[in-house]
């Protein structure tokens, strides 16, 4: 079908196709994938253990993480169901003093577990979650709108007892005005 | 050709005459008479398109304190008791967003299409009413009215409504329904139970 010399006669056209085809495909893919990442609903900003981060109008840091089993004294005081643990993460927030009287940021914190035998799981702060807790909780369980001086709040999470066994736990803090970026703190 | 030699006005007049003649076969150009909704008596059972409803009585009551239903000062509650059965094959939620099963008219101060304030299951006072297929349940439809507007012995008109199914929702889950149609009416004389009795 192809007579000898066909390649030689059409070498310019073939060269053009050889160059233009990958370039076109590359541009198309780049356009699609960049758009995908741009519009991704969440973009975590990772923070290593012990580090602090400027996020929203405040500086954030994890002070400490505590864990209580359902059998422990504290667990029974809070009425933990059988087979669950209570993870309490103390977050230090230094609100920036903007000098205005506007209310400060509200935030949403979630606990995430990645890796391990389960697919990525996440839990909401106990005050808004399904499992009820009895007893006296911490004073502040989330960000404060009024405080302007550095403060800490304790985010509580009721999780299954096998959480974090062979997986990494992270705390995700998000402020509505900063979304889709959210601060993701590694917990140890 | 014949069509070339036919004047247009003959064609127009001719086709108009044919159409008018055809419409005479279907009763002429007058609007068709609308059938009035049947009038029932208390205790009659009305089979609607989705619900079979038997209205028992209508009464006035001060409040339902256990259900946290206390009207403003000077107002009272108008209650219509009815037994409702679902004749479809899917559960039917009755919520007071729209009056689409039982309504009241002829009540001073209440517009005709006003949905009930609450719909309660009489047995346990629950206000999450979902009528299951084939399981009749006794319900109380509650409206808030001005205490001076109605008294014992007054007559109100209760309307039984049918929903008109349009289609399955394009984006939403479940069917889309048009404005409810009055399928039957009944006149009831009001009782007054004052503060009511706990059953």
């Amino acid at each position, binding site marked *: 079908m192809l007579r000898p010399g066909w390649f030689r006669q059409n070498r310019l056209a073939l060269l053009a196709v050889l160059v233009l085809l990958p370039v076109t495909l590359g541009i198309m893919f780049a356009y699609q994938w960049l758009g995908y990442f741009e519009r991704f609903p969440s973009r975590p900003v990772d923070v290593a253990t012990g580090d602090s981060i400027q996020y929203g109008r405040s500086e954030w840091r994890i002070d400490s993480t505590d864990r209580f089993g*359902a059998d422990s004294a504290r667990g029974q005081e809070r009425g*933990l*169901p*059988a*087979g*669950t643990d209570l993870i309490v993460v103390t977050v230090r927030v230094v609100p920036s003093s903007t000098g205005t009287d506007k209310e400060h940021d509200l935030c949403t914190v979630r606990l995430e577990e990645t890796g391990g035998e*389960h*697919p*990525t*799981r*996440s*839990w*909401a702060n106990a005050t808004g*979650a*399904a*499992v009820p807790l009895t007893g006296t909780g911490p004073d502040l369980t989330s960000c404060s709108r009024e405080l302007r001086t550095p403060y800490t709040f304790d985010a509580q999470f*009721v*999780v*299954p007892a096998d*959480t974090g066994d062979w997986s990494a736990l992270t705390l995700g803090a998000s402020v509505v005005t900063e979304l889709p970026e959210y601060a993701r703190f590694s917990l140890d | 050709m014949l069509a070339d030699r036919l004047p247009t006005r003959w064609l127009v007049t001719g086709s108009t005459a044919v159409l008018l003649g055809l419409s005479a076969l279907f009763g002429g150009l007058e609007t068709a008479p609308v059938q009035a909704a049947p009038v029932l008596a208390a205790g009659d059972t009305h089979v609607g398109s989705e619900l079979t409803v038997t209205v028992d009585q209508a009464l006035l009551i001060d409040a339902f304190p256990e259900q946290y239903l206390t009207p403003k000062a000077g107002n009272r509650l108008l209650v219509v008791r009815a037994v409702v059965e679902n004749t479809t*094959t*899917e*559960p039917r939620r009755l919520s007071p967003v729209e009056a689409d099963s039982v309504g009241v008219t002829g009540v001073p101060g209440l517009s005709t299409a006003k949905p009930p304030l609450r719909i309660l*299951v009489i*047995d*346990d006072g*629950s206000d*999450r009413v*979902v009528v*299951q*297929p*084939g*399981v*009749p*349940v006794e319900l109380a439809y509650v409206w808030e009215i001005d205490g001076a507007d109605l008294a014992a012995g007054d007559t109100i008109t209760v309307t039984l409504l049918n929903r008109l199914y349009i289609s*399955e929702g394009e984006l939403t*889950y479940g069917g889309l329904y048009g404005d409810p149609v009055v399928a039957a009416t009944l006149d009831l004389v009001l009782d007054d139970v004052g503060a009511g009795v706990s059953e």
Partner: protein
Amino acid sequence: MTAAVPRWRHAANGLTLVGILAIAAVVLHTAPDRELQQSPITVTGALGERASGRNIAATVQSVTVTESVTAGDGWAGATTGVWVVVELTVEAVVTDQAAVLGTAVLRVGDAGFSASTRPGPATVAAASLATGIPLTGPLMFELPADVAASAAAAHATLELAANSDPRVDSQIVVPLDLTADEPQTSIDVAYPEWGAR
């Protein structure tokens, strides 16, 4: 070339056209309609076994037909039919955001019955779910007495989903035999409880 096209070429073209039209008709008629495109993703379970979907996992423990039932908080509602009480354990799998037991429907024959919310918090119907933490409690369904004893009741199915709109998400379907045991006169059920058993 000015030679005439032979007749058999015309016939062959015609047949090819008819063939392509037939294939197009088949493709059009077998294309999934909206109902199929939006149908829930079914996970079939069995009595006593844990069935797990994307964000809902449930184990149906028992099913009882009874004339009257008393819930854990004392609620005892009457019905003109019978109560079908299903004891089950349910949990969210990956996230507790917007995870509720929104769909709990018992299908007998061509009729569907939704779990009653009359008992309020004494039933797990429409209860909020927690990730990985099971909630054990009853679901109560009102059924006409003749339907609960009919032949179709031996092949009833229970549908569970983590949203009141079950489209395009996992739906656990468990076949149940409502006629397996004798109907009871009255039973007590426990209040819903959290935690592993």
